[in-house]
């Protein structure tokens, strides 16, 4: 037996957590590309720098996005990863699969690529890691055959994603899977052909717990919520109490708006719903006894993004409550207006949130026809530098 070529990576096969090195090694037994990937990664571990060249445009017929070009900067050492392109494959809403579909994906990828994948990339796509330029079109054709399309990459709409929602979560106030699928299909053109100033992300969460991190990661966040009273099941409240659960300490005292009252003698839990801000804490703690109110819809927020270029932003509320019924006309109207305004006004690589920051929320509201309401702000401005339009002054 020759000494291992990857002594540093081998260290990471030890320990209780599942090891990606084991997966690489398995793939390396079948695929020279996976083997060279391991060897190149070992070199990075030795030298503490990466060995991928910058970008490179590759793609499939008819699309401008969905494939990320990747080339080794040491093809002399690692000829089998000279080209090692990534395909972003559009996942089904909520990341549910039949094993039949997953096996079909594996077969296509064994035929055309390195045998290595990510389930999933950070945007939500299935990521197929590493193929050559010649195989891209063939791989796409075979993927199409089994019903899988590419996702987005580049300056375009990125693959939308959604939390598990009504498929398995009783907190869901909106049909996250359906909204995500519907928008994805409606905006195929914007998804596959980069034409925007920069990327645009849409994520759909069923409730304010926001399990897809939409508020931090998307230009347009759709977050389920409700109006009216939290539904209380008195019997179940009693059962929590009997089981020794500390209703006062773990629920009532932690309510941020202090709108709850618990009377242990009469075993009644009262909520002053007018003061509740629908934070979800009490429902999270007592899912058997409490549920969101019956009138359901979504809060729409815009502008979330990571730090590049001007700093990170969390999304801002622009529509406090929107009903969410197919075919989601009101939402699509808004999305179209946002696309138009952003496309027309943004500088290159300026995200929606940065554009609003530069031109002012007032311009955004006028362009989209949205009405200013107090829910949009935490508190009003503290400086006297504001605008009037000429008509308003008459």
């Amino acid at each position, binding site marked *: 037996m020759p000494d291992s070529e990857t002594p*540093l*990576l081998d260290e*990471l096969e*030890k320990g*209780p*957590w*599942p090891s*990606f090195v084991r*997966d690489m090694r*398995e*793939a390396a037994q079948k695929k020279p590309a996976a083997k060279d*990937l391991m060897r190149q*990664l070992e070199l990075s*571990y030795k030298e503490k*720098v*990466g060995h991928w*060249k*910058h970008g490179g445009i590759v793609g499939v*017929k008819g*699309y401008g996005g969905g494939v990320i070009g990747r080339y080794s900067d040491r093809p002399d050492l690692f000829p089998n990863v000279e080209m090692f392109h990534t395909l972003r494959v559009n*996942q089904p*809403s*909520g*990341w*549910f*699969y039949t*094993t*039949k579909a997953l096996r079909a994906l*594996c077969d296509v990828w064994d035929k055309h690529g390195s045998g*290595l*994948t*990510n*389930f999933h990339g*950070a*945007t939500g796509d299935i990521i197929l*890691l590493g193929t050559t330029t010649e195989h891209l079109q063939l791989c796409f054709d075979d993927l199409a055959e089994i*019903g899988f*399309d590419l996702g987005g990459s580049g300056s375009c709409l990125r693959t939308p994603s959604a939390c*598990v929602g009504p*498929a*398995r979560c*009783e907190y869901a106030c909106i049909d996250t899977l359906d909204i995500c699928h519907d928008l994805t299909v409606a905006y*195929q053109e914007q998804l596959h052909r980069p034409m925007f100033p920069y990327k645009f992300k849409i994520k759909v969460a069923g409730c*304010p717990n*926001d399990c897809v*991190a*939409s*508020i*931090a990661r998307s230009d347009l966040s759709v977050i389920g919520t409700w109006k009216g009273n939290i539904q209380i099941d008195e019997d179940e409240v009693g059962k929590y109490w009997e089981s020794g659960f500390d209703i006062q*300490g773990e629920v009532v005292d*932690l309510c941020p708006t202090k709108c709850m009252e618990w009377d242990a003698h009469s075993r009644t839990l009262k909520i002053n719903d007018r003061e509740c801000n629908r934070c*979800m804490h009490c429902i999270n703690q007592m*899912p058997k006894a409490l549920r969101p109110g019956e009138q359901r819809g979504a809060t729409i927020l815009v502008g979330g993004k990571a*730090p*590049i*270029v*001007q700093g990170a932003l*969390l999304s801002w509320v622009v529509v406090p409550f929107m009903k969410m019924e197919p075919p989601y006309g009101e939402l699509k109207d808004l999305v179209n207006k946002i696309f138009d305004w952003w496309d027309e006004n943004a*500088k290159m*690589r300026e995200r929606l949130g940065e554009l609003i920051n530069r031109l002012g929320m007032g311009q955004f509201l006028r362009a989209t026809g949205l009405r200013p309401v107090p829910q949009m702000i935490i508190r009003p401005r503290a400086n006297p530098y504001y605008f009037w339009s000429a008509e308003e002054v008459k």
Partner: protein
Amino acid sequence: MARTDFGPPHYTQMLPPVIQRNYGKWKYHERLKPGLLKHVAESGDELYTVRAGSERLLSTDRVREICDIADKYCEGYVRFTSRHNIEFLVSDGSKVEQLIAELRNKGYPVGGTGHSITNIVHTQGWAHCHTPATDASGLVKALMDELYDYFMSWKLPAYCRISLACCLNMCGAVHCSDVAILGIHRKPPKPNHEIIRTKCEIPNVIAACPTGAIRPDPKEKSLIINEKRCMYCGNCYTMCPGLPLADAEGDGVSIWVGGKVSSARTPPAFSRLVIPYLPNNPPRWPETVAAVKNIIETWARHAHKHERMGEWIERIGWDRFFLLTGIPFTEQLIDDFTFATETFRTTPAFKW
């Protein structure tokens, strides 16, 4: 010509029968033990979810192994979570313990629900991206080996979400996590005039710099970097391959804490910088692993039940956080970018 723009498979084709029957009609759930949820529908149907950690970077063989398990216990259905966990959905409660035993046998940790550490959202690192300042999969593996117990148990006061992004692009969107690990560069790009001249759109590169550190070099038909103004974001490299900034000594890891995305109790919040630099030390990054562990265990010792990392820190104050964790406070922790003054203290009421 191949079919295009047909979109993803419709999700309804992928849902297990018990979900198809009870879609939108779930009544409540219980957390039976770490890694095991039980959902009950209005109809009385029950669904057990067994959550297992994964390495995210999966070989097709591993995916097939997951399929075999799902065929055996879950009627051929499986799902993944937004944090790279695998979820096995079981409608027959009597199979749950067998499934958990088989997962353990095959090396899949079962946990990551409730007051635990769940899988670390992360990016590509040296394995597949061109801009990383550190690796992703390896650092995550080293961390999860060390934090394994917290994945498998409910020893923490609240949820703890850890995320890692290997450069400031933050594909992994780590900026709102309880603990965020972010790869950073510390040296300005080194212009390669030949590549800049032939491959780059000079005005676009200049415009891409958030600090205005780049100006044209008419003599070379290239670019000059004002190194004093550069804060190593790598944005210019993304626009132009002639401006590489990766460097074995320069690159490393920074640690951010106290962010969250859920609105439960307190609003979503950004993570805040607490350790500006730790060296890359593959394959196990001992400094980073120790730093993260120290932060998590300090929080676990002091926080009230249900108090997320950021909620705890806001309660006790950041001055106290640095005291309790023993992390040295350095100049880099004081903001000097666009919205810096919002983070300065405007009251003489603070703690010693």
